């Protein structure tokens, strides 16, 4: 579904990604872990071109998304993204946050989008908040709304950029539960996370990104029990 070939990204002289080649199949749940500054978020943000790669190729559903003539907006409609800081639109109600994109992009009529928003809000138990504003929600509620806002576009893949890192500890669970549900529904996802327990439980594959390359990857059981790369060993010993 996503094919990355020799992806490099530099910010000025700072080379963040130094050649990543990777394939992500439909239905996979890939957890990306690594120390801060390792390039894992940059890798994720390159996948929908929030960061413009310096070189390399990214193919999504048979299309080279770095091609000059590609309509990146069209591609992003199929790639949901969830941010560390939620990035809900504070001037819009929860309902409008969810319906803005599908209605504006003419994928749904307003009434269809409203129905979809209500169905999704009901699913996460926040239907009664539909007409309130983001400022009135807790962090965990905000992030769950951000997730269903992305879901309302019916994406083929979901990209999570440290979805629980900005949350108070007692709210991490509710967000992880929702992501786990999506995983169980068969959604393809790439998650940059520091939640090792969650990565181990939900991911089908765990990737260790360090110094701009994928140092090691494996099925979660093997990855966490028998890490081979010395950097991964030392990283895991610090975070586990």
């Amino acid at each position, binding site marked *: 579904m996503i094919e990355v070939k020799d992806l490099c990204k530099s910010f000025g002289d700072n080379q963040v990604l130094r050649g990543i080649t990777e394939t992500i199949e439909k239905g996979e749940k890939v957890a990306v872990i690594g120390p801060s500054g390792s390039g894992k978020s940059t890798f994720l943000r390159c996948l929908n071109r929030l960061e413009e790669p310096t070189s390399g190729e990214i193919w999504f559903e048979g299309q080279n998304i770095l091609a000059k003539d590609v309509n990146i907006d069209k591609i992003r409609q199929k790639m949901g*993204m969830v*941010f560390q*800081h939620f*990035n*809900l639109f504070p*001037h819009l*109600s929860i309902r409008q946050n969810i319906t803005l994109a599908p209605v504006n992009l003419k994928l749904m009529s307003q009434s269809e989008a409203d129905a979809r928003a209500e169905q999704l809000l009901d699913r996460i138990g926040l239907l009664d908040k539909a007409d309130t504003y983001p*400022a*009135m929600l807790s962090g965990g509620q905000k992030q769950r709304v951000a997730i269903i806002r992305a879901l309302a576009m019916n994406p083929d893949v979901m990209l999570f950029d440290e979805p629980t890192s900005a949350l108070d500890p007692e709210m991490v669970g509710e967000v992880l539960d929702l992501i786990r549900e999506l995983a169980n529904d068969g959604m393809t996802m790439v998650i940059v996370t520091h939640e090792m327990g969650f990565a181990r439980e939900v991911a089908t594959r765990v990737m260790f990104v360090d110094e701009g390359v994928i140092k090691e990857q494996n099925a979660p059981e093997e990855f966490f029990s028998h890490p081979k790369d010395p950097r991964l060993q030392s990283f895991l010993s610090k975070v586990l």
Partner: protein
Amino acid sequence: MISAKLTIWDSLSKDLYRGLIQDDRWKLYIEGTGVTLLLAVVAVLMGIVIGVLVAIGKFYGSRRAAGPVWRAVAKVCDFYTTVIRGTPMVLQLLIIYSLTVWSKGTYACMIGFGINSGAYIAEIFRSGINSIDIGQTEAGRSLGLSEKTTMTRIVLPQAIKNVLPALFNEFIAMVKETSIAGYIAVRDITKVASSIKGTYFISSPLYIAAVIYLVMVLLLTRVQKRLERRLGRSDRG
């Protein structure tokens, strides 16, 4: 002592009578106030249109990934704000009027004040757009919204809310700054007052004009407060 006080009061009220009531002179003030408000409203509306466009030009031109066209646009916008903010408004007004394209001074005022206001409003909007977290743009774009839609539906509405106090300050300032319209014989409130003063050698018209400005500004401040409260609905936690 008492008689001296009486004399002051007497002459003051006589001045007021002659400056305001005699020969229905109050009508002149009302007309002048109308002209002042019209000039300020047109100038600020024009300023907002110019300001938003210039601010967007500068914003896109200043990005790391800006193309040559946006860079050129930003250069032009920079030139415009530099010249306008670096020269006196009276001079700008006289220059605009000297172009003599405008048969009436009123039009020259509207255009001149509008162009002047645009430069200041552009800076207000630019700071407003910059005040919106980049995450808002990223969230909009990652949903597949175009750059334009993200700007008009997500960034600008929030930026406008943030700059509303500054924008209203500009409007309030403009109400007062239009007082130079008299330079090109436009009969705004200041011009009306000074010509009555000049005709009858009384100073009360100046005070009357001052009170009228003050009332206008106070009313505008109230509107500003109400508007801010309405726009602040989504902030309540």
